[in-house]
């Protein structure tokens, strides 16, 4: 498996607190990796480290087989798109201008820019309100526009922090379909998730974080075992599903 993004033995410390300890993980080409774990487990930090927004104290991050530290800002920005949690836009900018910000890594002479913006809007099913303003959209519509902004870069790696949070069930399913579509185009997709059913059904690989450490990694069925849920989340879950995938419903605290 080729992995556009590889993190090896990465540790991150904020002050005296270790938020990420010796984490090794690869985000594979054409795969959706789901990063799960309790609040404060280090999920967002793992994404930040992958982007170089926070520096790793030890270990390494390789983007497209190059050491992140030796990469220029533009190189990382063109190859790694990032959708932070709680994304917002401060001014009532037109949707198209917001999505066009995703082309910023390509500078002002960006020949493919307009086409990439239009395509990203289409992929996110947001083209019909391209001329509207951000403040005129519903929360679900805004989330789609912000996703389109991240997709407009056409990066090889897409990182999204809790993209499913605050979305209604239909929008969540739509988002996961969209991410599967991005993976089908060859993108390495990595997202943090709290919804274990979405993680289990739509992700190819699962990374389980607990207290800054990766405690489980692999296919959903292997990583999200009852034992893992008990150890990491302190919960018991009910399982269901059909041939399309399995559902994991948190049921009781242990």
């Amino acid at each position, binding site marked *: 498996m080729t992995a556009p993004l590889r993190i090896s033995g990465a540790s991150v410390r904020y002050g005296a607190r270790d938020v990420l300890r010796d984490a090794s993980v690869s985000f594979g080409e054409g795969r959706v990796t789901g990063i799960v774990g309790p609040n404060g487990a280090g999920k967002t930090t793992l994404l930040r480290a992958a982007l170089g927004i926070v520096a790793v104290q030890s270990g390494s991050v390789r983007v497209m087989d190059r050491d992140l530290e030796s990469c220029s800002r533009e190189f990382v*920005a063109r190859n790694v798109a990032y959708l*932070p949690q709680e994304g917002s836009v401060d001014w009532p900018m037109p949707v198209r201008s917001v999505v066009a910000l995703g082309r910023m*890594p390509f500078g002002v002479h960006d020949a493919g820019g307009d086409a990439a913006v239009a395509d990203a809007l289409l992929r996110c099913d947001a083209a019909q309100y391209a001329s509207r303003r951000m403040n005129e959209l519903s929360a679900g519509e805004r989330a789609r526009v912000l996703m389109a902004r991240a997709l407009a870069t056409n990066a090889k790696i897409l990182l999204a922090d809790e993209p499913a949070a605050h979305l209604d069930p239909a929008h969540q399913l739509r988002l996961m379909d969209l991410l599967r579509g991005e993976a089908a185009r060859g993108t390495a997709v990595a997202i943090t998730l709290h919804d274990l059913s979405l993680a289990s059904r739509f992700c190819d690989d699962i990374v389980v974080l607990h207290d800054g450490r990766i405690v489980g990694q692999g296919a959903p069925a292997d990583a999200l075992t009852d034992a893992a849920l008990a150890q990491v989340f302190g919960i018991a879950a009910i399982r269901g599903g059909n041939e399309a995938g399995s559902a994991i419903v948190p049921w009781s605290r242990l």
Partner: protein
Amino acid sequence: MDAKTVQLEIADPSLSVNAIDHGALITIALASLAAVLAIASFLIGPAHISTSDLFGGLFENHGTATIIARELRLPRALLALVVGGALGASGAALQGLFRNPLADPGVTGVTSSAGLGAVIAMYFGLATSFAIVLPACAIAGALATSTILYFLSRSGADRTALILAGAAIASLATAMTALAMSLAPNPYAMAEMMRWLMGSLKDCTLADLLLATPPVVLGVILLMSCARGLDALTLGEEAAQSLGVDVHGIRRRAVIGVALATGAATAAAGAVSFVGLVVPHLLRPFYAYEPARLIFPSALGGAALVTAADIAVRLIAPDGQLLVGVMTALLGAPFFIWLILKMRRGTA
């Protein structure tokens, strides 16, 4: 077409296909307006001199007319442009940087701190040996406050906290300015206090203009160099970083640019307030709410507004007793309150 339709079109120009053309047209209109107002400002004053004498006096020696044209009217008209441009651009940049429509060099205390720096330099003899010490101290004062605001915003202070902190800094700087002037070994200090606190272009000289212009131009260029980064910052700091923007570099440049422009403007004209608040806000819809496109037009709009205010004070009170900062505050303070109400309704 009735009046209501016209207003709707103006309120939302960027929705049309020709948004960019609109922006360019508005920019040209603002530049023309500033130029026309500057010419009007040059022609207005307590001394009754004909237009032809004034223009003639600029280029050849016409005795009194030349002295008035070259030493008084021209510096005053040009300084209004420079001061307004500095404040307009600083306001647009601060609003983009702090992602806050209430940010403005006056409201956030940057102007008052620059005024304090200038007053200390002037009344304690620091500026007597080297004229450049005056703008340097004002820029230092502005830099101190913009740096404090920068660290506050970095440590997660929200919009309201930032503005309240700015208001506190502004009050403190104003009080210290009053204190400094009370203690100053200068019999005219108290009389001149109002000029520093409110801002005035009266009695500005060619030397003031020459001292103020280079830092203002440098500051505005620095601010314009941040433009694309400010656009990315509308998505939040992390998203901007992920787009390859050097967020810390942008912030540093913006803080220094604001300090240079506002500091030098304040050293020349005192604390003219609210220009940086009103102008970017009025212009924003014409530039699709994009911070990057707003900086230069805000400089032009600020230049036009200060020049217009400076004309108004001379028309209202030809004896020169009305200060230009009084005009901008009369206009700006109600605007500020209106803006807060609008923000509470979530429409700003």
